[in-house]
């Protein structure tokens, strides 16, 4: 079971709600993925009409909603979005996303840390989306974040685990769940993230932009499970040891 804050999830696959061709496809894909924690952007909620063709069906499906602050360009905007989410959706869970850069949508580490501290102090369950920066992840953990969400590669790029070296460091050091977010483009990449010891992955574009999102949701479900089982079983090691010829411990025989 994946435990984040005081909540347990049997699925380690988190999904998103963007980019699907229809709300119906989105719902079916999420259902087939088995995901129990689904993120959606606060900026997409229709606050004026009070109803939404994504939100209402999602709430009815029983998944836990993880509102995100996507679109926020600084800490102030993200905090406002989080407070809005708590008010409207009656949840303290927030995926903190701050990316002022419109080209690569790189998360802003300075604003993210500042916002995370304030939101944690206000009692939010904060899951920050960040670059795969091991020091930043430790600092976010220190201010009280319930998980960290380092990127595998640029958001929506489907490039996979470009940051693998740094993800390994984050996973090794973290004392909160590590959820690899952004860039996972294929089930095999999700498996790899889980084999490394990630606690969960978040996948959106790879499912939504596939030819058959519903089938792809299923594929990711089994890929994540396989990766997790492989991690628990313990991967066999690549042998890097050469046999040396001049003994260093010969003196022990003297």
């Amino acid at each position, binding site marked *: 079971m994946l435990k984040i804050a005081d909540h347990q999830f049997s699925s380690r696959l988190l999904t998103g709600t963007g980019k699907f061709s229809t709300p119906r496809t989105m719902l079916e894909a999420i259902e087939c993925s088995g995901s129990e924690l689904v993120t959606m952007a606060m900026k997409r909620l229709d606050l004026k009409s009070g109803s939404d063709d994504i939100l209402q069906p999602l709430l009815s499906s029983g998944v836990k909603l993880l509102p995100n602050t996507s679109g926020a360009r600084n800490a102030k905007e993200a905090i406002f979005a989080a407070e809005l989410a708590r008010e409207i959706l009656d949840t303290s869970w927030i995926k903190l996303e701050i990316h002022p850069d419109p080209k690569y949508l790189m998360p802003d580490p300075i604003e993210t840390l500042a916002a995370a501290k304030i939101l944690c102090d206000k009692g939010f369950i904060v899951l920050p989306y960040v670059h795969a920066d091991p020091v930043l992840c430790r600092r976010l953990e220190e201010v009280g974040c319930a998980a960290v969400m380092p990127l595998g590669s640029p958001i929506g790029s489907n490039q996979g685990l470009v940051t693998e070296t740094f993800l*390994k460091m984050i996973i090794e050091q973290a004392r909160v769940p590590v959820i690899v977010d952004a860039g996972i483009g294929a089930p095999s990449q999700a498996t790899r993230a889980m084999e490394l010891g990630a606690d969960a992955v978040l996948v959106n574009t790879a499912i939504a932009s596939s030819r058959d999102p519903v089938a792809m949701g299923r594929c990711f479900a089994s890929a994540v499970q396989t990766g997790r089982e492989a991690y628990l079983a313990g991967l066999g*090691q690549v042998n890097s*040891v050469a046999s*040396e010829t001049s*003994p*260093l411990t010969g*003196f*022990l025989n003297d």
Partner: protein
Amino acid sequence: MSFLTYLQGISRDKLKLALYSATSGDVERALNSPEGDLNSLLALLSPAAEPYIEQMAQQSVRLTRQRFGANIGMFLPLYLSNLCANECDYCGFSMSNKLKRKTLTGPELDAEMAVIKKLGYDSILLVSGEHETKVGIDYFKQVLPQVKHQFSYLAMEVQPLAEDEYSELVGLGLDAVMIYQETYNPQTYAEHHIRGKKKDFAYRLDTPERVAKAGVDKIGLGVLLGLDDWRLDALLLGHHLAYLESKYWRSRYSVSLPRLRPCTGGIAPKAELTDKGLVQLICAFRLFNQQLDISLSTREAPQLRDNLFPLGITHLSAGSSTQPGGYVNPDTQLDQFEISDERTPAQVSHAMKRRGLNPVWKDWESAWVAG
């Protein structure tokens, strides 16, 4: 969760069983694992790893050179006092031992430092017995500025202090604190610490956390090898280190691996650690933690020390005296324990260079970060 709670959550029996039932497969997996973890440490400390010591040594040398180059930091202990309010059956400073007690005065300290500076040292380890009232925080506050004036790097190995006391000392130039748990077995600990504040196992165990919270640059951990099962004690030392590194990740860490030595009124080792075991221990810690400082004292014999230098050691002392005032007036009346390597720093330095190692006498300048 404190480390005490963590330690209480571990079943010693189960851990010992796992340690002694590790297989060659476990050891081979650990040897092939790119990152050390506690499972690997367990395998490498187990009896099953004994046939692999040469392989461990080869890897240990490679990792040490990769991380530290050929450099080995040189430091010297300066004994401030042999006063002690504890009764520990393995230590020459024990309060009931009839030996001449001494605490250095300001001028005596200056004289000691002058001798040490002449030997070439710039990194000092201040050591004292544990006597809170006579050699306590007020004395340390007096002494530290005097020492920091002469030495770039200042470490201390004294009784456990409170967090705010460590903070005060950081302000006066304290760079490192060595606080050895002696053994992680509370029962054995109670048997050997008969009287005095040192009896408080939990307070001592929590000390590295107070040191870390006070912002001390480096924290030294250690066990006195021979008090209890050295494999299990070393494994629990690894657990302590991993716990601290995870929680206090801004600190640097070192371990010291002293074997129980003969001393006035002292006991014989209960669980003897052989030279082979010591090599296994050094290499296991290097493979477990590649950035760890591992220091070697003059307790070991010259020839063995020469062979150990390259295997994973990063810091060592040479020409040590273990008595207050011993650099100016060497005699053996006030010693904490007997040393085995009595060579001068120049002789040890020469032996290191012959093995391609570079003794580093100065490695820190606090003026760079003062502000």
